[in-house]
């Protein structure tokens, strides 16, 4: 592996972020409309026009053609990488690389998903002759709830991780949601509430699981030079990393560590040239309570097996030592199905100081990290107010 990738550090910036007009249950809006709203709002946030956009990145079958058509954009660079919910974090790296190579200058990364209402959603992906249906679905998988739970169970066996420790994440994340007016659930939650909620796929209780919502999100990436005279202070991209290890979860290399995230995190920190202690705020995709815990281990914020003690005592809550998922996360704010874009939106807002009651004081450097499939893909982004 060449060390050349480090030359991308700081070459591009995120200059616009936005959600769709509304998040939640939106049966009156199609997935494409949610894309449109987020893209429109992100361009306004950046102070850019549609004609400035020369690259479009999005995820979902055929969406890399569908979305530009709907928006009336003719991109010179098209990115359709689809590896699940973290795809939009990969798109940041791909956009940065394309901009650095001179293939485009202003990249729109957009997401829209009618995850709850299923309005104008692509058809199911897998046929009965797919590897998924032959070797997993036939045994009664529940999709992500069972796939993510398999790692949680093995982690409990290896390291003594407890359901109470998982519940700490849900409770802390709800406290952040209470400070975010756009969060879907804002009422206080106790550990008991989580532990007494019904089982979906043991060891996951209902309140270990993310929401299912409708919504969209978008981000604009451009060169550091172009970023200088736009509407908002740029957030510079210091480091990125990505990997995949499998598609169906039975092919996962390890059930006690997140291998794809170890790869993506290592590369992002190498490119950024920062240490874990330099990170002021973390947005770690929380499809289930255990997912950010395994990310904390994979990214080096704690040792392998120690994420249970790490999150105990509400360490990740407002006022805790490690502010994590400050928008209220997929657990309490919104989770459309592919949540990755929302980690980017919140990180940028924290670094700009736009977060009101939930603002992390003096946040200068943030990390975003996402999962795709069932621990299948991982992507990491480190960004900062300083180059």
């Amino acid at each position: 592996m060449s060390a050349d990738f480090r030359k991308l550090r700081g070459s591009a910036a995120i200059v616009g972020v936005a959600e769709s007009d509304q998040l939640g249950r939106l049966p009156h809006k199609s997935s494409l409309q949610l894309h449109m709203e987020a893209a429109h709002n992100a361009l306004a946030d950046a102070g850019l026009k549609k004609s400035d956009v020369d690259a479009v990145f999005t995820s979902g079958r055929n969406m890399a053609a569908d979305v530009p058509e709907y928006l009336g954009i003719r991109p010179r660079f098209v990115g359709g990488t689809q590896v699940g919910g973290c795809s939009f974090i990969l798109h940041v790296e791909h956009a940065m690389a394309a901009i650095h190579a001179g293939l485009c200058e202003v990249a729109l990364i957009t997401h829209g998903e009618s995850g709850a209402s299923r309005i104008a959603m692509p058809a199911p992906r897998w046929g009965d002759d797919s590897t998924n249906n032959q070797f997993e679905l036939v045994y009664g998988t529940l999709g992500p709830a069972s796939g993510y739970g398999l790692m949680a169970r093995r982690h409990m066996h290896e390291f003594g991780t407890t359901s109470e420790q998982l519940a700490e994440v849900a409770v802390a994340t709800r406290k952040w949601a209470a400070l975010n007016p756009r969060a879907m659930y804002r009422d206080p939650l106790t550990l008991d509430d989580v532990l007494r909620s019904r089982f979906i796929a043991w060891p996951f209780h209902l309140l270990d699981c993310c929401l299912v919502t409708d919504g969209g999100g978008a981000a604009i990436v451009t060169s550091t030079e172009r970023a200088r005279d736009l509407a908002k202070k740029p957030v510079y991209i210091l480091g990125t990393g990505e990997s995949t290890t499998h598609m169906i979860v039975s092919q996962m290399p390890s059930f006690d560590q997140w291998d794809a995230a170890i790869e993506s995190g290592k590369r992002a920190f190498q490119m950024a040239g920062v240490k874990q202690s330099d990170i002021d705020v973390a947005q770690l995709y929380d499809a289930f309570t255990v997912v950010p815990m395994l990310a904390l281990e994979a990214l080096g914020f704690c040792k392998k097996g120690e994420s249970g003690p790490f999150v105990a005592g509400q360490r990740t809550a407002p006022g805790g030592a490690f502010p994590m998922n400050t928008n209220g996360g997929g657990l309490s704010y919104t989770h459309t199905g592919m949540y990755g874009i929302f980690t980017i939106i919140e990180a940028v807002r924290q670094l700009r100081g736009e977060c009101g009651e939930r603002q992390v004081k003096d946040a200068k450097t943030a990390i975003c990290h996402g999962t795709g499939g069932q621990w299948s893909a991982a992507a990491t982004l480190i960004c900062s107010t300083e180059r």
Partner: protein
Amino acid sequence: MSSVPSSVKGVHYPRLRPGVKIATETTAKVVCRLETHRHLNNDHATIKTAEERFDHMSTPQYTGPIPIPTPETKPFWDGAKQHQLMIQRCRSCKQHYFYPRPLCPHCLSREVEWVEATGRGKLHTYVINHRAPRQPPIPPPFILAIVELDEGPRMMTNVVGTDPDPAKLPCDAPVEVVFDDVTPELTLPRFRLVNA
């Protein structure tokens, strides 16, 4: 099982509607399942019709998905039907692997062969599904497990013959294969605790 993909792929079946005649009970079940899948999103009436017809078939009923083998996976499904757990082994690097494919995922050699596994292994990890999937193969709650075979590869399966109680299901417990003939065409390799 071997008759399922060829009959499905080679013959045109009429779409299931009230009054459409179905040749045999066996064939009807397969057609019902396929039609149910195919029209899941755009024709709820078809689903209902197919499931109603399915309800009149033989009991006890298997309500899980019916997978369709591909050329590279067919020996596994044919083996299951004969109550043999067929996996593959690389002649170059000597490692076993699963799921079936005509190259070794460890060293990319295409010199690979089919072998019958011992059917013994360990319960690597599992969840207990309390919510029913769309097509439940077993009424919930049931155990969805990853078993590590003695030969090395891991596979998803169900653990049966034990209550779905975590206290009775330690990770790394020894398990052995059992073959469930869930329909006349489909046999699923499932596992049970050896000392249960």
